[in-house]
């Protein structure tokens, strides 16, 4: 039977392309379309989708549909749900693939209900086995991996980033069919007024960074001299983040200290929290310091490929098969030396650029 697949996405904040993860999901959609001999439709949402549509014009879709207009510029549940519902109905697809962006994660479960279909989120792979679609996703916060299939259709699947190769094709002229959507007054009650960065001296969360640096509660504990050195820890960590371009994560015990009014690292918020009750970021490398590496921490590392840790305890969780390398050392000393090396390298490369 010829299936129909809808690739659903929204334009990026810049407005002229799609979010990076969208191209990865498009790659999965194109692959699956070929495997199943299916028909591919692309559905786009945004204020103006013309430029973004051109970037996917060569993906081989039979149709490119769009719900566009100023009322669809912002990520708002009622308008996004109405737009996504209209696109899904217009496409009539049995399978709807979408990237797990915050915008689509917010609405597609509701859209599945409106379509009398089903939804699965945080899917890490989707494959066809003898014509049967199977999705892989994690349960219990990355501690149990399950393979599932669904009877209900349409099936909306939100795929995580970093699981598929991004579709890459030349931009071209896109013939976009506009799907009209009239929003009821109730759908415009909420007004999106903007975006706010977290209260921190510098932006420490960098999703595209090559390295994740995770700080544990050890940074705020008494050190060998019997005193805490929080100011020094703050300086060392911020200096390292600047020099390495790493993204900052924190263990729950460390970020919780903020709410409990204890002495804390000023730039660390719950947004940085990685692990069982935090995020599960995707970076090629991860470096942990002053964190014990127990299971609730490490579940947040499930998608970090290369892992190293610095800890004073040679029997900590990292030593039990959780990290590739565990350095048994004082993280304060190691980070100070590391910052000096990175600074030296930075000066050397700057000098090289200045040489005639």
């Amino acid at each position, binding site marked *: 039977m010829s299936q129909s697949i809808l690739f659903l996405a929204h334009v990026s904040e810049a407005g002229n392309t799609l979010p990076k993860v969208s191209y990865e999901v498009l790659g999965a959609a194109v692959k699956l379309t070929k495997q199943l001999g299916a028909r591919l439709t692309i559905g786009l949402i945004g204020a103006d989708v013309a430029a973004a549509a051109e970037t996917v014009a060569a993906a081989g879709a039979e149709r490119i549909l769009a719900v566009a207009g100023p009322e669809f510029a912002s990520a708002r549940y009622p308008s996004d749900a109405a737009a996504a519902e209209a696109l899904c109905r217009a496409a009539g697809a049995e399978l709807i693939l979408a990237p797990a962006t*915050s915008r689509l994660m917010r609405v597609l479960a509701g859209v599945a209900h409106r379509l009398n279909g089903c939804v699965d989120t945080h899917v890490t792979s989707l494959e066809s086995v003898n014509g049967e679609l199977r999705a892989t996703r994690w349960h219990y916060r990355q*501690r149990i991996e399950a393979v599932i299939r669904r009877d209900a259709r349409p099936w909306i699947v939100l795929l995580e980033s970093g699981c598929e190769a991004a579709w890459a094709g030349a931009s071209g002229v896109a013939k976009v069919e506009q799907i009209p959507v009239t929003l009821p007054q109730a759908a415009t*009650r909420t007004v999106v007024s903007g975006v706010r960065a977290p209260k921190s001296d510098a932006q420490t969360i960098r999703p595209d960074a090559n390295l994740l640096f995770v700080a544990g509660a050890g940074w705020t504990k008494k050190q060998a001299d019997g005193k805490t050195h929080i100011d020094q820890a703050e300086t060392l960590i911020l200096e390292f983040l600047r020099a390495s371009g790493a993204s900052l994560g924190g263990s729950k015990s460390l970020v919780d200290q903020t709410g409990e009014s204890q002495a804390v690292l000023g730039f660390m918020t719950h947004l940085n929290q990685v692990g069982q009750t935090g995020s599960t970021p995707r970076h090629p490398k991860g470096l942990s310091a002053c964190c014990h590496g127990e299971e609730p921490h490490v579940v947040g590392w499930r998608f970090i490929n290369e892992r190293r840790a610095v800890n004073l305890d040679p029997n900590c969780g990292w030593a039990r098969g959780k990290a590739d390398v565990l350095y048994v050392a004082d993280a304060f000393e190691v980070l100070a030396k590391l910052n000096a090396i990175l600074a030296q390298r930075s000066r050397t490369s700057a000098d090289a650029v200045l040489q005639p």
Partner: protein
Amino acid sequence: MTNGYHIVVCGSVVPDPLQTLEPVQTPTGPALKNEMMLPAVLDPWAAHALYEAANLASKAAGSNSKVWLVSVGPKAKLQQVMMTIAQRVSFELVAVDASASGFADAHATAALLAETIQAIPGLDRSRLLVFGGWESASRGAGATMQLVGERLEILDQFQGVDQLSVQADGSFEVLERIEGGRHQVSVCPGPPALFGWATGNLPEPRNNPQVGMANMRTVMPALQRAKSVPLPAGGLHFLSASPPKQQRQTRVVKDLPAEQIAREIAEWISK
């Protein structure tokens, strides 16, 4: 504004994060080995939602606000968890004796939650705020709350909420997590609305025995009244469920000077 809010918090129990979880196959699908023996806690994000609900209710003008905790889970587990949670903030428990498994279907759980909320006597939709965790530590779908909202016909939904501030005109300023460690700021004119909470900003409330005693007057009868409901699979089939097999061969580096360790790490970072 207002006569206060009617805040319904959806939240269930999950295994204590420190426990080892091992999947086993049962006739009805996967489950956790010794699931009923594992100590449980209130789901962390749902707990944040409950604390935020209690905080909002206590600050709302007129103070006619009320908080319900709608909890779907095995009765014995709910009772165990309520012994702790009930000491923290004031709420009225509405319990349903059903599976809280991470392998249960979000659609079935949402249908049961919505049906239970609609049956709460005296619930005023014009003052209704539905709270819950944006994800659970069990299924982690991030879908259940939206499905509940759709069933309750609530259009204003927010997910990954870290802050809800009531403005002078009674509207809500809502901060939702988005990519890159940032927040999207929205203004919603008021109830009805649904909020899937991330961590919020409140510390865990201290245990208060007086609150506990007041709560327990309604918690125990609610548990006794809890009807037992089987959750349908809803066309969801598990083909396998297994813990991750990857075990790394950790190289433990001892007695190396900090300088040398730093050089090794710098080399690794730059590769």
